[in-house]
């Protein structure tokens, strides 16, 4: 895990803005939400905290924001130790899954809130809010109340509100989690573009690996209150450090002792010594992609991803007996933490 890239990120984060979390532990009663977690987020980067629910990713984000106080460890923002600083004094922008819109205020007043707190003049506030409204494409909605907006619009308003105070870091807690699939897709792309324009150090929490891979430059995978692995989307997919990451980042199936991605399996009609016999349960056409669902002799099921041409060429049909062989696979040590072999 401590590759030279990680070391570089650490140095870069310390030198400029960025966020360093070292040795943070957080307990809620008997439950250990964060167990000695350390992460480094480079200045101006867009980083995803990825993990299943209960993995501690949201708690970590709240600790960075100051909404939660860690039991141990420290948080550095732009090289400054902010561990004991109140959330009010950290200058972070926080965006919540359920928007946390001030529902008794108009869109304008929502976005202007942080500026008013800072005692800025009316003219200045008006100008800044206007810019932000344009940035999040909410022109014409200034006088609306949050309940007159769609979920996507509310979240864009919440983003503008957080950006208004020019935060050092922007923290997004499952920002698209409450939206339907189509809007979620739009907002992902939009957030990516927004980040290219604004360049504020951003961390967003998600349980959706596709979302993390699409939006983030760096992904930190969390499980059980610990960091499993961090790295670029491609590193995680191609070089997972543990069984958990293999299974969580992208699809993977266990085939005997090893793990294999569904597109890394060869299907043939004749055995060649290295293959295992399997029964085709179903051939599912998903457009360009075809998913072949198989059952092995020991009753284990898994699926293989092929293109339409490959399926046509092999003339695969439901109920056929075929022979499969992993083109590449990974094996982990018995406790599932260390990659043993790459075949």
């Amino acid at each position, binding site marked *: 895990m401590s590759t030279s890239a990680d070391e570089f990120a650490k140095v870069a984060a310390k030198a400029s803005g960025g966020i360093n979390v070292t040795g943070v532990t957080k307990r809620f009663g008997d439950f250990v939400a964060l167990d000695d977690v350390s992460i480094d987020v480079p200045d101006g980067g867009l980083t995803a905290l990825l993990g299943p629910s209960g993995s501690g990713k949201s708690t970590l984000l709240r600790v960075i*924001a*100051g*909404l939660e106080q860690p039991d141990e460890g420290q948080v550095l923002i732009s090289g400054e130790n902010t561990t004991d600083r*109140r*959330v*009010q*004094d*950290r*200058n*972070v*922008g*926080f965006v*919540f899954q*359920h928007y*946390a*819109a*001030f*529902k*008794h205020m108009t869109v304008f007043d929502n976005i202007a*809130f*942080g500026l008013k*707190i*800072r005692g800025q003049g009316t003219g200045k506030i008006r100008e800044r809010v206007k810019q932000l409204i344009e940035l999040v494409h909410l022109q014409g909605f200034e006088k609306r*109340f*949050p*309940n*007159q907006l769609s979920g996507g619009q509310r979240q864009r308003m*919440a983003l503008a*509100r*957080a950006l*208004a*105070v020019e935060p050092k870091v922007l923290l997004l807690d499952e920002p698209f989690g409450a939206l339907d699939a189509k809007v979620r897709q739009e907002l992902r792309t939009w957030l990516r573009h927004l980040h290219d324009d604004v360049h504020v150090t951003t961390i967003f929490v998600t349980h959706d690996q596709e979302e993390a891979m699409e939006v983030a430059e760096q992904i930190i995978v969390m499980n059980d209150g610990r960091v499993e692995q961090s790295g670029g989307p491609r590193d995680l997919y191609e070089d997972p450090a543990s069984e958990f990451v293999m299974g969580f980042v992208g699809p993977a199936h266990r085939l005997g002792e090893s793990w294999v991605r569904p597109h890394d399996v060869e299907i043939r009609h004749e055995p060649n010594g290295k293959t295992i016999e399997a029964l085709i349960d179903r051939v599912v056409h998903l457009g360009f992609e075809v998913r072949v669902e198989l059952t092995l002799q020991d009753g284990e099921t898994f699926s293989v991803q092929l293109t339409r041409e490959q399926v046509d060429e092999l003339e695969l049909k439901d109920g056929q007996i075929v022979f499969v062989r992993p083109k590449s696979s990974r094996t982990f040590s018995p406790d599932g933490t260390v990659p043993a072999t790459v075949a």
Partner: protein
Amino acid sequence: MGLRAPFGGEVLVRGTVLMWLSIIVLIPLGAVVFRSFDEGAGAFWEAISEPEAVAAIKLTVITSLVIVVINALMGTLIAWVLVRDEFPGKRIVNSIIDLPFALPTIVAGLTLLALYGNDSPIGVNVTYTKVAVGLALLFVTLPFVVRAVQPVLHELDEEMEEAAASLGASNFRIFRSIILPNLTPAIIAGCALAFARAIGEFGSLVLITGNIPFDTQVASVYIFGRIESDNTTAAAAVAVFLLVLSVVILFALNLFGRWRSRHERG
């Protein structure tokens, strides 16, 4: 779309409801109004502007307004503690809130008399004073604001407060700019109900206030006295005044609710 009465049935259902409301509410109210104008508008005006009646109405309305303000503050505070605080015995305190509502008002009056009466065990005697009127009204109106604010506070999205804090708002600022505006409608609704209850209160007052005309006699006791002395027009006139006041409050509350639901919520 929900369940509807079968075809033709809705007329029957609607008719029954209207008839019931008429028998129970509308016709008696109409009768009072009618009775108050029995001897013409002049007599009505004379009855309502009689100094003793004016004094009783003034005392009732002013005391009610004062206790409503106290209720707004204390009721919100109690609701706050019951929702946001954890302490042993919280459930018991929570159920005590409804006691003044469940207690027969005459029993409430007796309770207050026992504590603040002539032989008060704590040496505080407020009987036959305006303080007694306020005290009794505070006792019976305690639940209204508490019970109106409690669910709203419970449902209040705490992430709104966290968002405000992350934008730099102090705790006081969060209360003033985020929490209070969201509670105001509930506080107002609770106050309106408390006020409506207070202007008509009888049972808890009749024992402890002494019912001294021009001093501690409230409107409802005045009405009772006029009926006793067979002056039904005077009684009905003051009754109609209270009725109109109540209707105005309900109407205002309704308008306020409608105005509010146009934005906010959701």
